């Protein structure tokens, strides 16, 4: 824009409005601001968008117990240590699982599918039961009654060198369908 138009000379021109030019003057800063803001906003969206899976989502197997120890009719509680990688941290966490020796060593997560308390096995009634909100599950993990909307969650297993291993995962709580997290 020519500089002679600006400054003191513009004072005299105030009485004869030039709307097109004035609009243009307003559009320049608005356009530039929008451009800068859009650039940063696009980057910020990609930067903040939550990742659905960890970058190295190789399935991790945790040892449960030697297969030879898994005998009997009752579910056996075992604690496992699983590695969780999320963001910049990789943590080792302890979890409880139930092994069902009479069901081909099926492994159930001890996390109640209702609100996530840990279920306990009750010898007297031969059922799993959640002490938080009184959900009951059968010996195979299927739902009997109580607020839980599905049965206990089974976990993928394999046998390696005589040791039962499990791929620990968690599921979205309080849904009928089983939706894996992570």
């Amino acid at each position, binding site marked *: 824009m020519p500089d*002679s138009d600006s400054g003191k000379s*513009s004072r005299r021109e105030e009485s004869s409005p030039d709307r097109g030019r*004035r609009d243009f003057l*307003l559009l320049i*800063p608005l356009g*530039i601001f929008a451009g*800068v803001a859009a650039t940063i906003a696009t980057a910020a969206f990609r930067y903040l968008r939550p990742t659905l899976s960890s970058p190295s989502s190789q399935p991790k197997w945790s040892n449960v117990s030697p297969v030879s120890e898994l005998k009997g009719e009752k579910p056996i509680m075992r604690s496992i240590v699983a590695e969780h990688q999320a963001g910049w941290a*990789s943590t080792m966490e302890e979890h409880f699982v139930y092994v069902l020796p009479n069901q081909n060593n099926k492994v159930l997560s001890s996390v109640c599918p209702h609100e996530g308390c840990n279920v306990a096995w009750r010898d007297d009634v031969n059922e799993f039961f959640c002490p938080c909100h009184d959900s009951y599950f059968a010996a195979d993990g299927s739902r009997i009654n109580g607020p839980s909307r599905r049965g206990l969650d089974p976990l993928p297993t394999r046998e390696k060198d005589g040791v039962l291993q499990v791929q620990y995962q968690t599921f979205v709580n309080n849904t009928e369908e089983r939706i894996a997290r992570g």
Partner: protein
Amino acid sequence: MAEAEERYRYPWLHRWLSRWTTLTDIERSLIDDPESGLKAWARTTAGVVAMLLALQIVTGILLGFYYVPSTESAHTTVAYVEKVVPTGAWLRSLHHYGSQWLTLALVLHLAQMFWRASYRRRPVGWIGSVLLLLLVLAEGATGYSLPWDARAFFGTRVTEGIAGGLPLVGSWSRRWLLGGMEITPITLARFFALHTLVLPALIFMVTALRLFVFRERGLVSEAEERQLERWMHQQIARNAVVAGLVFIALSLYAARYYAPLGPAADTAAPGYLPRPGAQFLWLFQMLKYLPGRAASIVAVALPALIITGLAMLPFLNPPPLRRVMAHPRRNMGVVLFVLGFTLVTGMTIMAYVKDATDPLTRAQLSRQEAEEAAFRAAPFVPLRSRTSESVIDEETDGEETTESNNTATASPSPGASPPPEASVSPKPSTQVSATRPPAAYITHCSGCHGTRGQGASIYPRLIGVSSKPRRTVEDLINMMNDPASYGLDPLMPSFATKLSESEKREIAEWTAALKKRR
């Protein structure tokens, strides 16, 4: 009024803005002198400063979404932003180089105000800009420590050394800055709080005072200001154009050059040569020419003198540049300004020249560059830690040697203190497994607190619970009956009716007998 409003395309918008906001008022107050040509374009440094300042705030907030200010996590989280998070490297580079560009923009802004002699008409605007420069420099100094790589660590060392060299208050200011006698996790937390809370608050305060509190008339009268909206709109457009161009340049620069990040501070090789950010190179270079104690004093005194001199300029009232020649004895402020400008520019250039020409320095610096490049190329390594003590207990059965192996896998923490109970009872005492838990415990409690009371994830361990004050057997029974009154709801349900009185007592007695190992 109707006649005046005809000048606006959207009179209702103007009416609304002037009725409900101070925006039109602020706009008018910034007019000062309706210049044209080179002076009008020179004044766009204001827009550049505003843009870069806003950019620092936005990118700073974005970095805050991942950064964790602890000595264990700081470096890993910055590396995560650099290597894993999409656009993270670019945003961090914008923040890093943006702070240096902002310093430069503020210096140019002051030079421009000096040239137009606006500091004489509007001292508050001038002093506000000087304070902004001081605060931005402080942001640069504190921000340099946050990535916690070797560069950051040695940067902190130098800052600390300078603070310690202050006359009279030296040792005091060093201790307060570090939060102790050494660079510790407390130091990082302090620098973080200064960088993200204290200094930004002060910057907001200075900006708010400048725009909303103080009103300074320029060369035009209030009546004239109303007539100058057209000029003001042109000036805003000029500012936007220049600020937009600077943004594009900075974006491309940040896309081309990474913000520096080396390996973690504790892995730095001996002989590491730290280099400050570009805005401090002049000070760094000057420290080379001054011996020990004098260096520390000068390093503080000189910037303080320059900043104070600048802030005082409106009151020293030097004549405009063209009259300086005629009155050589009255030009204190001018001399200060020119001397300071020459010194800073000269020293900065010398710092670059020295690093580029000295063969030993050159070799070490290129070694460090190669190290940084190698670190950048290496895949991201997550921070490994164990969340619950119970995991260690479970696996090692309390063996001292295995325990130390396990903690060694976590990243080393220089400031972490050993658990307090270690000094009290160094020997393994009671065997927890000696007494079997009651059957009711297994059924109702072990799901969360573990089969041996060791706890799991968010559920607390019960071992050692009776060593807390007032945790008697009766108290534990109360806790089972009414967990809510202990703040344990909603995770712990009430067992008031689920357990018989004898079962509760049995569980409480067994729990109270659980002793810590080690």
